[in-house]
């Protein structure tokens, strides 16, 4: 009887150890789905994504197939000066080596920008779109996919997005 108890306890301990190991591995798996190449703007999503007055969207797979994208992530932050400063700093860091499709600055700060980031995978283009409007609403979009800059512009200015 006592032996059986020990066997059961050993099994429980072993199962718990396995679960524990899985728990530690889970965040690693989640981190693997984050934006590629450790972009600084990743911090904007992580830092402000779940706050008040913030809307964060993430799309992947079938919802994006028709647009030639594999990843879409956007964040809209309302009236937050600190977030604006932080986002601009992140953009400045990420734009190094990027192709500036368009950039508008006002009083030294970026007001709107389209950047094409260097590819980290073949046939996978990465874009960062940014805008802060007159009402101080910050919009930051990250797009990943086969689409090129022309496709993106066409998409942005199409009336039936």
């Amino acid at each position, binding site marked *: 009887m006592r032996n059986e108890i020990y066997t059961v306890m050993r099994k429980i301990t072993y199962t718990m150890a396995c679960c524990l190991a899985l728990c530690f591995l889970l965040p690693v798996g989640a981190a693997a789905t984050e934006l590629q190449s450790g972009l600084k703007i990743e911090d904007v999503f992580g830092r402000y994504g779940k706050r008040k007055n913030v*809307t964060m969207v993430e799309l992947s797979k079938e919802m994006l197939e028709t647009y030639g994208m594999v990843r879409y992530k956007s964040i809209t932050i309302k009236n937050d000066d600190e977030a604006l400063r932080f986002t601009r700093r992140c953009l400045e860091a990420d734009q190094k080596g990027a192709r500036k499709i368009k950039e508008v600055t006002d009083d030294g700060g970026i007001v709107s920008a389209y950047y094409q980031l260097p590819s980290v995978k073949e046939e996978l283009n990465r874009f960062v779109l940014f805008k802060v409007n007159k009402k101080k609403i910050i919009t930051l979009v990250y797009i990943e996919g086969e689409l090129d800059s022309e496709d993106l512009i066409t998409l942005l200015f199409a009336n039936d997005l």
Partner: protein
Amino acid sequence: MKEIEELLEKYFEGETSSAEEKMLREYFTSGEVAEHLRIHAPLFLYFKEEIGKENVTAPEIKTPQARKVLLWVSGVAAAILLLLGIGQVYVFRGDLYCSDNYVVINGRCYTDPHTVREHALNALQEVSATEKDAVETQFRELGSFFTDDEE
């Protein structure tokens, strides 16, 4: 002898205590069993052997100290798992419930495809409106430049 017979009767009726059963086992395995009771001897011999086996395996059982450690480790592991579980729910709430397509509004996650799509399009329209705004701003600035010149 009569005592053994009475005990045996009680035993078969299932009314014996463990001490009385021990007494019976000892009697039937002593080798001095009355002729008319020998028929029951193999049964008690078998029980004694089984008990002996259990006693032989007893030293393999971990000491109470090891048992305590095992219990303690199991307890700690269970506590860590529980904390991690709770932590995952709070920290990775968005990631857990918002797997592929989602929108987080004021910290709350929504996965309804229409809502998600609507907010994605809103963001894209917002950034695409930049071009129009920029042109308007430039025209306005140009306009004010000419107005200033005329004055």
